[in-house]
């Protein structure tokens, strides 16, 4: 065993040196004269939330936003949702005619559009199935609540989030463009 313990020390030391080196790179990432100033928030691989904000990718599925004017309460999103977390109620009403002298149009007015984010699986099926471009993903993520019941968000809150919808990123060239512009 004596010979074995002789070979044991350098391997352990090498590992310790590596750990120490990585720790130093994290604690003292600055170079030159500033080397001695500890700056762990620069050297760290993690985002120091809430002191600095995380930057999600434009495609990030943070929260679903609603453009209320585009919704026709067709219920396609509600019935395609795998766990039924979208609640829609609406009624028919008459809108002024498009052209002067025409007949008033019959439109669907949205009374309630709630998404229960405590149930939502963030699969994005509702956004994909919406044929009238009323639902959009936004990378917004700061909407945690203390009570689970408060995660049921109504159409006004979903409408506020619509302001944060990013422009659609161009798909890579060579494949067919699929998505329209965001209807601002």
């Amino acid at each position, binding site marked *: 065993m004596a010979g074995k313990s002789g070979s044991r020390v350098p391997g*352990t030391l090498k*590992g310790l040196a590596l750990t120490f080196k990585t720790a130093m790179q994290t604690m003292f990432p600055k170079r030159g004269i500033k080397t001695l100033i500890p700056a762990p928030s620069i050297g760290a691989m993690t985002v120091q939330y809430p002191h600095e904000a995380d930057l999600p990718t434009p495609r*990030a599925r943070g929260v679903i936003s609603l453009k209320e004017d585009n919704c026709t309460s067709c219920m396609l999103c509600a019935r395609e949702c795998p766990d039924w977390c979208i609640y829609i109620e609406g009624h028919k009403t008459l809108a002024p005619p498009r052209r002067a002298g025409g007949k008033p149009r019959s439109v669907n007015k949205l009374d309630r559009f709630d998404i229960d984010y405590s149930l939502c699986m963030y*699969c994005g099926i509702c956004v994909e199935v919406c044929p009238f471009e009323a639902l959009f993903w936004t990378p917004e993520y700061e909407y945690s609540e203390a009570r689970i019941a408060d995660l049921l968000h109504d159409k006004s809150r979903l409408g506020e989030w619509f302001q944060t919808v990013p422009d659609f990123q161009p798909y890579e060239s060579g*494949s067919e*463009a699929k998505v329209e512009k965001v209807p601002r």
Partner: protein
Amino acid sequence: MTTTEDIPQITDLDSLDGAIARLVADNSVLHLSQSEAEERSGYQAPTADGMGERMIMNMGPQHPSTHGVLRIVLELEGEVIIRSKPIIGYLHTGMEKTGEELSYLQGPTNVTRMDYASPLFTELAFALAVEQLLGIEVPERARWIRMLMCEANRISSHMLFMATNGMDLGAVSMMLYGWREREEVLRFLELVTGLRMNHNYIRPGGVAADLPDGWKGSLQRAIDPLPERLDEFDILMTGQPIWRERLQGVGVITAEECLTLGVTGPILRSTGYAWDLRKDMPYLHYDELDFDVLVGSYGDCFDRYAIRLNEIRESIGMIRQIVDRMPGGDYKIQDKKVTPPPRARIDESMEALIHHFKIFTEGFKVPAGETYAAVESPRGELGVYIVSDGSARPHRMHVRAPSFINLQSMPHMMRNSLLADTVAIVSSVDPIMGEVDR
């Protein structure tokens, strides 16, 4: 580490029969309930000198090293494990049954939650099975995107193993390093799919979205530092005498025993049996890639660790080949029966709008029949078996979860090992309990 050519494959069925007899004879599985086992094993209260202790001990379900909610009932003779029994079901969510209620369009969002450390593989197996039933061919680009995403996911899954395996065995800084590398890969997955896990990205008929602009840069940021970091892992773990003594010769299992138990993945490969579905039953375009199947020779915890570490290196090589060969074209099939019409056409054509509603309200019909499609997940052969009755929902869906089947090799690995080795063995099997219980 040796490559495939040197290893003889097992063709002798008698040796498998011998393995069955040996597995039965070694009596390592605790079949009784806890109270029965205590009664029959002649449980004695610990004496003052600590001798003659034979007791039943529960490890888990909340033990930090059981990778979720696995409970292992151990029958101990002092410090030595005589028999053991893994108890599962604490995470049972009925996902297979739920899959019968969801249409094929909603299916991927359900199956992706089974193996939460490598979600894209379950999606891929589900999509391949549905496509087999439909008899459709997905476009070239979709297949290469699928391979790219799966290999990136394999890296993140094996990095999770590196982190937790190090943590379980006391290499605490490994926990941080493994997590750090995994994070970069997850950033790439988020850029492409929108989520860090449970992506719902690989769908029957292709993938959900094309690769965004700048994906190559993001991928390089994730992949390029890895070879250097993996060399650091070699210094921190592979070369360490403490690490080797903790793992070498622990939890030994033979190839015959693995085959009789149905164990696949790194555990089977660690015994020297080169079985990798990417090589042996190629799906997508894996037959066009140049990579090695890594095998071990002792079938112990160290081989399983080393195989996973080097599979990360193989995956990096594969990703580089895939990036070079990524073809142009469409990312999902344009088949009126399977995919909705393009967005832009909905505004122009009433027919397209009706079609859109029809495909989403009814789902697409899949011809009656049954099929099985398997992929090589980081944990072994992951298969999806679907029986279709011709409607838009599967009549029956079964997932052959590698974690579940690998788990039954654990009592045999643990027999006559020390209590402290349990942690190493559980960690080296790398079970994901969401997939075990599904």
